[in-house]
């Protein structure tokens, strides 16, 4: 089955100011194989991909060989010429351009744009995916999932020999992931190689043939998938085994703390009703775009509803803005930690203490710096944020640790109700386990948690109760431990009745 070696990378090193992101890494990819690239957050996966696609130049001494011949990529167009195309981690698309142009861009090099060809190429690419879409539509009008599909269409529309996908499934829901698998199968048959990055182990085992593992910028090894099981893969990545076991000791027992009745907002959600108890983890799940984020934002005053009532400890309350939510001891951790969660250019301690500055003033109403340090250190220890330098800028932490900072930032407000949107999005398995443990502990201490998640594994492992949303409505409610998991998934995809 394995074809001849298409690409070899040897002695790849990459130095950023103050950090060696890659150190003598190697990688080889064969024709027609699906090759997974694994590693913890910050291991250097994306950096390797950027080098491979000509976005960044590696240090001297690094060698890249295509078909056995050494090549040098001085720009993205060079790598495209060699048949290497990439779908990068953060959606790299142009919101103001049409679908067709997003797919076409970067092709015409003689200076002129051929619009007929542009439409044709785009339509063909969309057809290959087996979906329908108006290619003249402006990209920003599409849902995130569809945008991700456009990115995939774009990459396969080039006559690629190697297709790189950096976490392509992070923003896709269940059914689209299935579709992606079948596309990958198709491409394999055409002898196209695929380099695949994901933090989801089940995915890796499902689609890939071989796995290369990186750790802290170093090459750990390359193995045939058949030689591995989950445990051994994790061992390679983390250096120790991480027991990922379901934490399903039901803790939910407390009083009803929050009750939501018939919350509606035009174009967002309709007739949302549920109750939340002290010490409970309530999962809100469904497909991407089901309206979950909009619903929880409404509870945090970011998206005031048109109608409906919210009761806190039996008393009717109004939440029209964030301040009111905070006043009622509700905290919200948004799903996009870069765009919405953290202030990346500020230090870790300033990020963590931002929501409580008003509580730590000196008598002259200045900020009490000592108190800031103390609170930050306290949470660094509680959440084992690494490295534990409280003055380090948030942007210099790896993804998992950034997520922990975001969690700390809201825990410090000592909320009664914690709303957390996609708690482990893009987080590696070790950090994920830590975050899960933490949430469970908090629940045990009596905090009520609403967790929005698209990952079934996470939902089943962590929550006490599940609400399934579809097209802005709650279509199913069940107890996680006793409920029928297949039924929940079916409800999410097919909806009511």
């Amino acid at each position, binding site marked *: 089955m394995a074809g001849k070696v298409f690409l070899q990378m040897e002695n790849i090193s990459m130095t950023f100011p103050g950090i060696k992101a890659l150190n003598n890494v190697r990688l080889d990819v064969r024709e027609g194989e699906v090759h997974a690239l694994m590693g913890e957050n910050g291991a250097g996966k994306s950096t390797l991909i950027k080098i491979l696609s000509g*976005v960044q130049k590696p240090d001297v001494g690094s060698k890249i060989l295509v078909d056995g011949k050494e090549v040098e990529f001085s720009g993205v167009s060079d790598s495209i010429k060699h048949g290497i195309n990439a779908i990068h981690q953060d959606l*790299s698309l*142009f919101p103001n351009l049409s679908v067709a142009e997003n797919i076409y*861009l970067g092709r015409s090099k003689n200076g002129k744009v051929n619009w007929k060809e542009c439409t044709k190429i785009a339509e063909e690419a969309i057809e290959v995916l087996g979906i329908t879409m108006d290619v003249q539509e402006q990209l920003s009008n599409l849902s995130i999932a569809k945008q991700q599909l456009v990115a995939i269409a774009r990459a396969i529309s080039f006559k690629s020999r190697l297709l790189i996908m950096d976490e392509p499934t992070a923003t896709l829901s269940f059914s689209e992931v299935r579709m992606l698998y079948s596309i990958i199968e198709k491409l394999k048959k055409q002898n196209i190689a695929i380099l695949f990055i994901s933090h989801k182990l089940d995915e890796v085992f499902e689609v890939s043939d071989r796995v290369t593992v990186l750790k802290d910028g170093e090459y750990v090894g390359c193995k045939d998938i058949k030689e591995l099981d989950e445990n051994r893969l994790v061992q390679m990545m983390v250096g120790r085994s991480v027991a990922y076991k379901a934490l399903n000791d039901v803790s939910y027992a407390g009083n009803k703390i929050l009750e939501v009745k018939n919350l509606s907002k035009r174009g967002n959600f309709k007739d949302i009703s549920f109750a939340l108890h002290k010490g409970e983890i309530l999962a809100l799940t469904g497909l991407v775009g089901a309206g979950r984020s909009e619903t929880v934002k409404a509870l945090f005053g970011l998206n005031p509803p048109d109608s409906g009532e919210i009761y806190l400890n039996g008393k009717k309350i109004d939440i029209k803005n964030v301040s009111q939510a905070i006043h009622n001891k509700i905290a919200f951790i948004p799903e996009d930690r870069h765009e919405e969660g953290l202030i990346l250019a500020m230090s870790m301690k300033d990020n963590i203490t931002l929501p409580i500055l008003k509580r730590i003033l000196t008598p002259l109403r200045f900020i009490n710096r000592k108190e800031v340090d103390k609170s930050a250190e306290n949470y660094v220890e509680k959440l084992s944020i690494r490295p534990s330098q409280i003055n380090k800028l948030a942007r210099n932490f790896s993804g998992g640790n950034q997520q922990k900072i975001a969690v700390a930032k809201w825990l410090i407000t000592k909320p009664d109700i914690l709303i957390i949107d996609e708690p482990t999005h893009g987080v590696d398995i070790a950090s994920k386990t830590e975050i899960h443990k933490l949430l469970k502990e908090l629940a045990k201490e009596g905090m009520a948690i609403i967790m929005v998640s698209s990952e079934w594994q996470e939902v089943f492992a962590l929550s006490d109760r599940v609400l399934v949303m579809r097209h*802005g*409505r709650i279509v199913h409610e069940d107890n996680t431990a006793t409920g029928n998991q297949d039924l929940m998934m079916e409800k999410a995809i097919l909806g009511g009745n």
Partner: protein
Amino acid sequence: MKKILEKRETGVFLILLLLCFGLSLYSPSFLSYTNIKNVLVNSVPVGIMAAGMTIVLITAGIDVSVASQMMFSATWLAIFSQNSPIANPVTVLILALVLGAITGAINGFLIAAFSIPPIIITLGTASIYRGIILVYTNGRWIMNIPKWFTALGKTYYNIPLPIIYAIIIFMITAWILKHTYFGRSVYAVGGNENAARYVGVNIKKTIFLTYFYSGLLCGFAGFVLDAILGNCQPSGSNGWEMNAIAAAVIGGTNILGGSGSVIGTVIGVAMMGVIENGLVVAHIPTYWQKLVYGLIIIATVTFDVLRRNYADSKKQMIEIDQEA
């Protein structure tokens, strides 16, 4: 039809029509050939600069040195046309483009090579270009530009040449934006710089070319200005860069980059010209003119932004299952 209504330019165009309609009711001479011609001809220099500004704004940049660049070109052209034995329409035009190319290239180089925010560089170069001509001329005006030069700014058979120039520039610019690789790269860079890098767009080159092109147009605008006025005032045209920016933004160009169109800018330029003309034609008392002008700009932009926000909020709606 629905597409046209959705376009950003449409709203402002409607306001423009409304304004024109109101003014023509007030004063019949507003719609006369002469008046329309005057409004348009006087808008040509700003219009040409605004065309370049549109491209700059689409890349999420800004060029506050356009007025200085235009006067830089206009001043040297006036001096050259008066004193040089080889001065003729062709050499003057070439010189205009060369001067614009130089100032534009300096801007483009400094911004692209050092990746410094464009507003800082152009703020600096604006003083430099203006300072050079003022120091050289000692602020003196250059009077009596030769007849053959001003003949290039006149009207023949009821067709004003400056308007022809403007139409050509607008068409070239629109064509560049729509049909060239550079033009599409401009949208790409402004919409998502990282993504543009990933698809192989040369960011530095695109940014350099953007300011270079803006400079070229400023050089040409200096040529047109001299031809129309017949004199050159090195200290003149102060603050026109803001007019050019305002025209582009009123015409729907996003000042944060990523979107905009030449046709919109044309509407924006016409809008500014009509307001300025209308204030006099409508006999607005002198002391009130600036106030009314400011109010109209604020109202137009507010209307446009509210309309866009509304459109965006509609876009983000999800379909809610009605049964269940």
